[in-house]
C-alpha cells in the first residue's frame, strides 16, 4: 500500500472507533434500535473475529488450506483456546500460545534437518 493509503486507512479506522463508541453518546437519546437489529449486532463481532482468526490459523503463505499436525499455528491456536477457556486470562494465554508455537516451530526445524 502507498504511504497515503495507509494514512487513509488510519483515518477511516479512527472514524469507525468514533462512530461505534461515541455515536450513542452523541445521538443515542434520540434513537432506539429495533430488537431484531440488536440481535444481529450481538453476533456480528464474534463472527468477524472468528473470520479473522481462522484463515491465519489454517492457511499457508500461498493461500492453501493446511490442516494437520505439521501446522504449528493451528496446533498452538487450539492449545491457546483450551488454555483461555480454562484460565480466562489473556496475558497468560498469549504467553502460553507463543511458547507452544515457538516450540513446535523449532521442533519442525529439527525435524526438517534430521
Amino acid at each position, binding site marked *: 500500500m502507498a504511504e497515503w493509503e495507509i494514512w487513509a486507512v488510519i483515518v477511516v479506522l479512527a472514524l469507525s472507533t468514533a462512530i461505534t463508541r461515541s455515536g450513542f453518546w452523541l445521538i443515542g437519546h434520540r434513537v432506539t434500535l429495533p430488537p431484531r437489529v440488536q440481535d444481529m449486532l450481538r453476533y456480528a463481532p464474534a463472527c468477524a473475529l472468528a473470520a479473522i482468526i481462522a484463515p491465519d490459523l489454517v*492457511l499457508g503463505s500461498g493461500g492453501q488450506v493446511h490442516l494437520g499436525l505439521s501446522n504449528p499455528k493451528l496446533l498452538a491456536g487450539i492449545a491457546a483456546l483450551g488454555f483461555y477457556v480454562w484460565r480466562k486470562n489473556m496475558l497468560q494465554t498469549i504467553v502460553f500460545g507463543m511458547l507452544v508455537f515457538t516450540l513446535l516451530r523449532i521442533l519442525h526445524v529439527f525435524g526438517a534437518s534430521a
Partner: protein
Amino acid sequence: MNAPDPVSHSAAVVERHDPALWREGLRTGVPSLFGIGAWGLVVGIAMVKTGLTALQATGMTLLVFAGSAQLASLPLILAHAPIWVIFATALVVNLRFVIFSALLAPHFTHLPWRQRLLYGYIAGDLTVAMFLQRFPTAAPVPGKLSYLKGLVFPNWAAWQIGSLTGIFLGSAIPTEWGLGFAGTLAILCITVPLVVNRPALCGVLVAGPVAVLANGFPYKLGLLAAVFAGMLAAMTAESILEKRKARHG
C-alpha cells in the same frame, strides 16, 4: 449579560470533581492495567511486523485506539484490500462497542457534546463493564464522571505505553519468531467471551470455515461474506432453539 445558563450550571454541580470517587475508579482499574498494556504491546509489535513505519504505527495507535479493529486491519492492509472493505471490517469488529456505549451513554447525556465524544471514544470494553458494576442505573449521582475518569485515563495511558513500547521494540525482534501470531492469540481471547450462547457458537463455527473457503474472494470480501454467513447461522440457530423451547416448554 452573562446570565448563568441553568442547565450547564446544574450539570457543573453534578460533575464537580470528586477526588474520592476518582481514586476509587483508579483503584478498581489498576489490576487490569497490566493486561491492557501487554495487549497494547502485542498490537504495537504486530503493526510494525506488518510493515507499518514507526510513525504510521504511532499514528494508528494514537488515533484509532481500538486493538481488535487495528489487528483486523493488518492482514487487509497486507493484502491491499480496498479502503472501504477495511472500514466495513473495522465497523463490524467494533460493533460490540455500540452495545457497550448504548449502556453507558445515558449516564452522561447532560455533558457538552465534545466531552461526550471524548469519553465515548476512550471508554473501551473493560472500563464500561467496571463502571456499570459500580453505577448500574443512569440516575444522576454526583462524582460519576470523576469515577469514569479514574477508570478511563489510566486505561488509555496503559494501552498507549504498551503499544508504543511494542512499536519501538518490535522492529528489534526477528521476524521468524512470529510475534505477529500473538495478535491472533489476543483476538482469540476477545472472541471467547463474545460466544455467549449456542447461537453465537454456531455463528462462529460457520464464520471461521467460510472465511477460510472464501479467502480467495476479490477485494478480501470473503471476510464480510463470512460475517454475514455467521450472523445468518446464529439467527437461524436462535429461532430453531426458541421454537424447540416453545414446543417443550
